């Protein structure tokens, strides 16, 4: 099963709509709650990142029988130094983002913590693509 969502940069009212839909689908499929939680926390942080930093983005969720593969592809400023961005506390977020309760430099570390596999590719001035893979059962 495939799910696709458009994400609009700067539209905080809608931040989380995609994550919420994915959570509902995972619940219906009977995925264990603890595993759903990890997936949607990682996805939500990544969705908020698109709203916070990019002009627009597309979230593609690919549901397999044993795992979920998520791709978040955005058109935005890109990340110059990914290893620096992964450090807890590092942030380039605006005041507006901070006012929403985010932008304290915990988003990417949170994503890493909750993703079984994480891959980030980015080009400055073009955008960022985040791949998150989580398995429904631990081998």
């Amino acid at each position: 099963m495939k799910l696709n969502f458009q994400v609009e940069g700067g539209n905080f009212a809608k931040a989380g709509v995609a994550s919420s839909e994915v959570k509902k689908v995972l619940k219906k499929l009977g995925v264990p709650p603890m595993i759903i939680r990890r997936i949607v926390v990682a996805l939500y942080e990544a969705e908020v990142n698109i709203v916070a930093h990019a002009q627009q983005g597309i979230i593609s969720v690919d549901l397999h029988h044993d795992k979920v593969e998520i791709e978040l592809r955005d058109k935005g400023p890109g990340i110059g130094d990914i290893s620096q961005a992964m450090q807890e506390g590092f942030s380039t977020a605006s005041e507006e983002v901070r006012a929403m309760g985010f932008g304290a430099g915990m988003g990417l570390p949170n994503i890493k913590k909750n993703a079984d596999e994480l891959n980030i590719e980015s080009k400055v001035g073009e955008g960022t693509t985040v791949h998150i893979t989580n398995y429904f059962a631990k081998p």
Partner: protein
Amino acid sequence: MELARIVEIVNGRVICGEEKLRRTVKYGFSSDLMSDVLTINIENLLLMTGLANPQTIRTAEMADIEFILFVRNKKITMEMIKLARENDIVLITTGYSLFRTSGLLFNAGLKPVY
């Protein structure tokens, strides 16, 4: 601790989710930083916060948090109430500060997460 008792201690007002007032709450976490809230992985938790916007409710939805207590009489919008109802989240407000609210509930036996 029963949720109804929490409401009583903080002189709170229930905005939505009255049907859950008999539920037991074991842990408390106070934060205005949603990424911090998203690190919590525990059931029966009350989130105390001064951050009142739709992302607070979304964060609770993702982290499976069923109870939110807004401090300092923060304005709860219809959009927030709608989101909370959709996700079976109880919203409570109090006029007390985050410090006072946390202190009172800690003293009454609500357990810290970290």
